[in-house]
Each structure stands twice: as C-alpha cells, then as structure tokens.
C-alpha cells in the first residue's frame, strides 16, 4: 500500500506536467556551476547562508534552490550548517547594527580560501533600508564582498547565475 502510494506520488507530481522550457536552460546553468566549482576548488561548493537583517524574502528564494525544480545538490552546491565548512558566505540584508558583530564573527570563522556573495538589493547598499539608524548598509561595509547578486529578491535562477559568475571570474584565492 505504502509502496503504491509513494509511486503514485512520484508519478503524479514529478513527471507531470512536461518540464517548462526554461528548465533545461536551468539544468545547463547548474551543471556549469558544478564544473566551475570542481575546476576551481577540486570539489563541490559549500555555502553558508547568513541573514544579516533581511526581510526574509531573499531567504525564501535561497531555500527554493533546494526544491525539486532546481535541486542544486545535484550540481555540487551544498548548504552547510557551519561557517567552518563553508567556501562561500551568502549574505542577505542591509546588515543591521545588531547583526554586524555576528556577521564579522561568522566571516572570521570561515576558513580561507573563502568568497562572500552579497544577495539582494539590501545587501548591496542597504536598499530600501538605507540611511536607517539601525542599519550599516551594504555587506561590503562590514566584510569584503566578491560578488553582488541583484534583485529584491533575486530569483533562484539569478542566484545560480551569480554563483556561476563568481566561480568563472574571481581570480583564484588558493
């Protein structure tokens, strides 16, 4: 019974409807991220996400990277629980003053070589929250940033494109 149920679930939702046209482009994009990560790091890419005061919109889209449509783990992109295991810090939010120290500590806890990607309009320059007494405004004012990914929030595809750009263009730190 259980087995049939699981099977029907799989059939019901994974093969129907036919993949959308942009999905193949997506798979290609993600595969490129995988190859670039291996070429640069000799292994997959471990990402530690840090919410530095975001509205949580960016997190929702970062989460979406792990759903069955994007399933980035297939391509060697892994979200890890500790900065000690990370190659990349994905930072969101206008860096609230209440989070600045935690962000610095997370950065310092991440071993070299490491990259920092600022995700979303807020993380670039504070975005709509710029000028507030409670925000530092922009991740680069607290820790060095290697890449900005625009959007409010950036879509999962934007995020993948950004990570690929990071891997292809930043000069090797190792």
């Amino acid at each position, binding site marked *: 019974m*259980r087995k049939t*149920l*699981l099977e*029907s*679930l799989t059939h*019901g*939702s*994974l093969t129907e*409807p036919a993949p*959308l046209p942009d999905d193949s482009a997506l798979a290609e994009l993600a595969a490129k991220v995988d190859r670039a990560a291996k070429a640069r790091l000799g292994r997959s890419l471990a990402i530690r*996400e*840090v*919410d*530095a*005061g*975001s*509205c*949580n*919109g*960016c*997190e*929702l*889209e*970062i*989460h*979406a990277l*792990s*759903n*069955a*449509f994007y399933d980035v783990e297939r391509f060697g992109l892994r*979200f890890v*629980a*500790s*900065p000690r295991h990370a190659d990349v810090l994905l930072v969101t*939010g*206008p860096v*609230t*003053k*209440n*989070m*600045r*120290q*935690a962000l610095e*500590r*997370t950065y310092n806890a991440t071993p070299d070589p490491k990259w920092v990607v600022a995700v979303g309009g807020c993380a670039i320059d504070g975005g*709509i*929250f710029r*000028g*507030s*007494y*409670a*925000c530092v405004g922009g991740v680069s004012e607290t820790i060095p940033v290697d890449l900005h990914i625009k959007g*409010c*929030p950036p*879509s999962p595809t934007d995020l993948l494109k950004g990570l690929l750009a990071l891997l292809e263009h930043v000069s090797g730190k190792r």
Partner: protein
Amino acid sequence: MGILDSIPHVQAVPSHRPWPRAVVTEAGWQAAIDRLVEGGLTLLGFWGEPAAVHMAMLDGGSAEIAVVTYECTSGTFPSVASRHPPALRLERTIHDLFGLVPTAADDLRPDLRPWLDHDAWGQSYPLAGRNASRDVRPYQFLPAEGEALHQVAVGPVHAGIIEPGHFRFTANGEHVVRLEQWLGYTHKGIEQLMQGADLATAAKLANRTSGDSAVAYAFAFARAAEAALDIQVPRRANYLRALMAELERLANHFGDIGAICNDASFALMHAQTGILRERCLRTADTAFGHRLMMDVIVPGGVAREVSPDGITALRTLLADIGEVFPRLIELYDNTASLQDRTVTTGIVKADYARQFGAGGYVGRASGRDFDARRTLAYAPYDHLSFEVPVLDTGDVNARVWIRIREVEQSVALIAQILDLMEPGEIRIAPPAGRGGCEGLALTEAFRGDVLVWLRLDGELRVERCHLRDASWFQWPLLETAIEGNIIADFPLCNKSFNCSYSGVDL
C-alpha cells in the same frame, strides 16, 4: 455596547477611521487594562509616539475595535505589562524606541530590560525626537537555578537558512525547563524610515516588513491608508488582492507543512510540498510579475492587472493541487513515525492562546476561533464563502492540520474569486489634500493577523505608522509550548509556529 462605553475617556479623535480612538486619563487607561485582564477584550496592538502610547483592543464577541491613547505628559505611562503579560515585549519596545517609562506599584515592577536595543545603534531612544542617554548594562537573562540545570545558548546565527535570533534554553538533562528568546537582530528601523515618506515609498517598506507576508502587509497598509482617506477601492482590485493573499497563504502553508515534516526527518513530504510551493511562486510570477508579489498592492487598488496567462496558470495550479495534495494528506495521516513526533508535542494551552490573542494557526489549533477575514469581514471576504478550521489539542499535529484545512479553503477561495471577478477599474488615485487623518486595518496573513495603524499629514505623507505582526503574540507562547519537551523537539515546535523575526524586529 461599544468598547469605549465602559472606558472613561476625555475626547474622541474624529479623524480616526474606521474604528474609534479616544484619549483617556489614567483612570481610563487602568479601566482598559482591567478589561484586558478580565478577558473581556483582547490586546490587538500597543505602540508609542514621542509623547503618547496607544492600545488597540478587540471585543471578540461584537467584532468591535477601539484604540485608547494615554498622553505621557511626564514621559511615563502606567505599565500594561505588569498586569497583562501579552503587552510585555511591546512595552519594552516602546521604552527602547521612545524612552517612555512604564510605571507600576513596587510589587509589580515593570520589566525594563531592553528588547530591540542591543546597544549597537550609537544612540538611545531613536524615535524619541530628543537626545537622552540610557543606562547601558549587560543583558540579563531570567534566572533558572537548580543543581541539575544547564544552559544551552543558540544563535543569532543558526545552522539552517533561517532568520537570526537568540534562544537561551535551560535544561534538566534532555528536558527544557525554560526557554527565553531574545530577538531584535533584524531591527531595521522601519517605523522611522516611514516617517515623512510618501505613500508609495511607505507601501514598499510595508511590503518588506516580513518577506513571506509581503502581500498581507501591503494589503493591510493599503487598507489602513484607504481607511484614513475614507476611500473605497474598485471591486476588481479587492478580488485581485484576495487572489494574491490566498496564493501567498498557499505557498507558505505548503512550505511549512513540508518543513515541519522535514524536521521530523520525513524528507519525502518536504520534497513534495516544495514542488507545490514552487508552483505557487511560478504562478504568482506569471500572473502578477513577481514571485512574492511585492509592490502589486498599493494604496488605492493594485498596480497591475493579472495577466491572461495568469488566469490559466491559476486554474492549472488549482488542478495540480487538487490532484496531489489529498495524497499528501493521506501520507501525513498514515505515517506513524511522523505522528509519533507531532502528536502531543509542543502544546499551547487554550487559556494562553486566548489571553495572548494568538492569531493564525497557533490560535486556531488551540481553540481560538478568530480569523480577521471572517471576524472583521473586510472586502472581498465579506461576500466570499469559506470556513475557518479550529481545533483544540494545541500540539504540533493540530497546527499542521489547521494548515492542511486552510490550504483546502484557499484553493476554494481562489476558484470562487476567479468565477466572480468581472472586468473593471483596478485603481483610484488617493485624493489630494485630505490630510491629517488616521487609519487602522487588520489583514489575515498566513500566520495570523497583521495590524497597521497610520497617521497621514496634509500632503499625504506618513507622520507615524505602526506595523504589528501576529508573531508578537505567538513567540511568547512558543516559550510555554516547549516547556517539558526535549530540546530535540524544539526545531519541530519552532517550525510549527514559524514566527517572523523581521516582522517583530521591524
């Protein structure tokens, strides 16, 4: 009998809509607190201004609301929290932002520990409009003493992709004796950024108060502005707003049902609901041009029409959900290892849910029959038919079931709206020059009611705006729900609440 009939007040404020606001003296303020303590009224909101504090209260029976205002001529106000605990964090926030001091008899001494202020802003009382220095002392967690007890500190940076906050567990072996939360890490100063902003900018800020409730916040903000200006938006705009609100509710409930199961190590459910959530977001993108539907609802209506493809996409989405979701419900219901974790775990007592006026699935899983869409019947829900599911076991399982039933209701609501919606205008321009007015609105977000109160000046700029997330009255209940459970069940309890951090830190 109106709420204000039993509360002595000095004068009513005529420009406050749609519910009354009145200025009270200390006697009136204490009478209002009495009504809250007795349980006759529910605290809906409690916020400050440089020289005044306001409380919004609900009479659940008559669905009436009133706001009382106490003018703090000497920089103090009678403490609400020392008599009515649900006001505590709001009261500490008022003190942090405005420097107003709650007073009470010595044996009820108000809790003045900072809440949002982590001593990092470089200034004290940022919304007070005057410079004053504050006594800075290291933050004190509440004590829990005993030989076998130990503490576990978690956060602000957590192991998953979640918002930052600090949790201090005191445990006896595996069992949690006390949990104390300390939030404020995502405090962005939204209410100050709103001051002086035009309606469009302020609406954008409201949209970004809590990303998962972008639609609900934009909806509440727009309705508060429209109440203040005394305008009615076109019928079609109301339908489009509700379409977005229900789509947002679906996306979040799918995400949460899966995430709760995932925290009980049942990843299959997470994968399946993740697909449904993504389909909702893609439908939103097709229909409204943004996956989270930000900046579509604006004061006066909606900023853009739903695309023709969008209507088709919405109908396809409903069909997909209709096909897959019943099987997922069956799977949830028949998986003993999952039920083993969710049944009787993290119980919120019905008394607490009532006292705190807990909204959303937290309240409704513990017997509190309140849903702003029905109790306050705002457009277009006033002529849509739907049910509000209520359970009374108050555990993780009940919160999952409320969400499951709400998914079914949202699907039916979207279908109804698609059938009822007729062509027409979608936006009217806010009238110029009708300033100096105040509005209050409540909108049902996926996790409970969002309250927005605002005052506009003569040029339709925001003079003061307060946004209150449902989480204010849910977070403290999470502290009670975890007591006696094991630490390992915390993620499960926490996920079943899914309280907002950004929405309460502001």
